[in-house]
C-alpha cells in the first residue's frame, strides 16, 4: 500500500509544482517591466550566461560539425553522393543539433550557475533582506537572469550552428577533398531560410525560455540549506535536459510534419 501511496504523492507533488511554476512565470512576466528599467542588470546576466558560454559553445559546435563531416562522408560516399555532405551537415545542425546541443550545454553551464546563485541567495536570506528593503527580489534578481538566458540562447545556438558548418567544411572540403562549389551550392539549395533556419531560431528561443525558467524557479524554490541548493542544481540540469528533448520532439512534429 505504501508503494501506491508514494506514487500518488509523487503525482500530486508534480502537479502542485507545475502550478507553482506557472504562477511563478506569471509573476516573473509581471515584474519584468520593472527590471527592464534597470537594463544593466540584464546585460550583466547576458555576460555571465552568454559571453562566458561562448568558448564552450564555439568549440563544441566545431567538434560536432567535424564529427558530422567524418560520419556523413563515410555514409554518403557509399551511395556516391559525397557532394551532398554540406546538405547533411547544415540541415542536421540548423534544424536539430544546433538548438538542442547548445541548449543542453547552456543548461549545464549557465542554468546550473543561475540556480546555484539564486539558491545561495535564498539560503543566506539575501532575498528576504531585499524584500524587507522594499526591493522586489523577482524584479531585481530573478527577471534579469531569466531574460539574460532567453536573449543569449538563440544567439548561442546560431553560433553553434555556424561553427558546426565551418567544422563540416574543414573536414569535408579541406581534409577529405569534397568539391567546394558542390558543398556550398547543394547546401544553399537545400536549406531554406524560413523553413529551416527560422524554425531553428524559434526552437532555440523556446529552449532558452524553458531552461531559464527552470533554473530561476529551482533556485527560488530550493530548500534553504546546503543540501537543498545542491539538489536544486541537480534538478535544474536534469529537468532542463528532459524539457529540451521533450520540447524538441513537440516542436519538430509541428514544424517538419509531412515533408
Amino acid at each position, binding site marked *: 500500500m505504501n508503494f501506491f501511496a508514494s506514487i500518488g504523492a509523487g503525482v500530486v507533488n508534480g502537479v502542485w509544482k507545475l502550478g507553482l511554476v506557472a504562477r511563478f512565470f506569471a509573476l516573473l512576466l509581471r515584474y519584468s517591466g520593472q527590471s527592464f528599467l534597470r537594463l544593466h542588470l540584464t546585460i550583466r546576466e547576458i555576460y555571465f550566461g552568454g*559571453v562566458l558560454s561562448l568558448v564552450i559553445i564555439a568549440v563544441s559546435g566545431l567538434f560536432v560539425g567535424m564529427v558530422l563531416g567524418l560520419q556523413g562522408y563515410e555514409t554518403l560516399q557509399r551511395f556516391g553522393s559525397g557532394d551532398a555532405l554540406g546538405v547533411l551537415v547544415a540541415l542536421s545542425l540548423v534544424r536539430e543539433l544546433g538548438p538542442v546541443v547548445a541548449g543542453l550545454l547552456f543548461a549545464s553551464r549557465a542554468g546550473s550557475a543561475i540556480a546555484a546563485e539564486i539558491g545561495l541567495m535564498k539560503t543566506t536570506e539575501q532575498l528576504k533582506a531585499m524584500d524587507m528593503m522594499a526591493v522586489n527580489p523577482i524584479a531585481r534578481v530573478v527577471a534579469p537572469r531569466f531574460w539574460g538566458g532567453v536573449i543569449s540562447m538563440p544567439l548561442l545556438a546560431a553560433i553553434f550552428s555556424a561553427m558546426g*558548418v565551418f567544422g563540416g567544411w574543414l573536414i569535408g572540403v579541406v581534409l577529405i577533398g569534397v568539391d567546394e562549389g558542390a558543398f556550398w551550392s547543394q547546401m544553399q539549395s537545400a536549406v531554406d531560410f524560413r523553413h529551416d*533556419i527560422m524554425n531553428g531560431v524559434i526552437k532555440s528561443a523556446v529552449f532558452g525560455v524553458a531552461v531559464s525558467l527552470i533554473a530561476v524557479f529551482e533556485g527560488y524554490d530550493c530548500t534553504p540549506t546546503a543540501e537543498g541548493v545542491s539538489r536544486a542544481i541537480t534538478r535544474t540540469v536534469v529537468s532542463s535536459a528532459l524539457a529540451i528533448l521533450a520540447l524538441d520532439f513537440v516542436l519538430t512534429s509541428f514544424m517538419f510534419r509531412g515533408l
Partner: protein
Amino acid sequence: MSRTTLDLWVGIFVVIGMAALFFLALRVGNLASVDLSQTYTVRAQFDNIGGLKVRAPVKSAGVVVGRVEEIRFDINTYRAEVVFSIATRYEFPRDTIGSILTSGLLGEQYIGLDAGGDIDMLQNGDALQITQSAVVLEKLIGQFLFDRAGSATD
C-alpha cells in the same frame, strides 16, 4: 550610466551571434538566391502527381521560379489539383505546359514549366490548360513488358 568593459563584451557577443545568423541565412541558406516574397498563384490539374510534395520547386528551363503551395484532390474531376506560386517578375504565357519531372534518377520531383506562345500572360488564380503527369515507374515497366509480349507474337 557609465560604460563598462562588461557592456563591451555583451556587445561583442551580440555582434558575433548576429553575424552567425547572417552567415546561416546568406551562406548556408538560400535567402539571397530566390526572392519569392512577391508571387502570384497558378493552379494545375494532373492525372497523377507521383511523389510531388508541398514546397517542391517549380522550375522553368532548370531555374527555380516558384514553389508548390498546396496539393489537393478534386472530387469532381478525380484529378490532383496543385496550387503553386511563381515570383511576380517571371511571367508566363497562358498556354504554358506544366509537367511533373524528377531531378536525377531518384531525386525529388518538381513542376517543370514550358512556356507557350500566347500573347496573354498567366494571371493570379489562373489554371494551366495542358499538363503532363508524373512518370510512374510501375506503369512504364508494365507498358514495356506489354510491348515486348506484343512484338513477340508477331
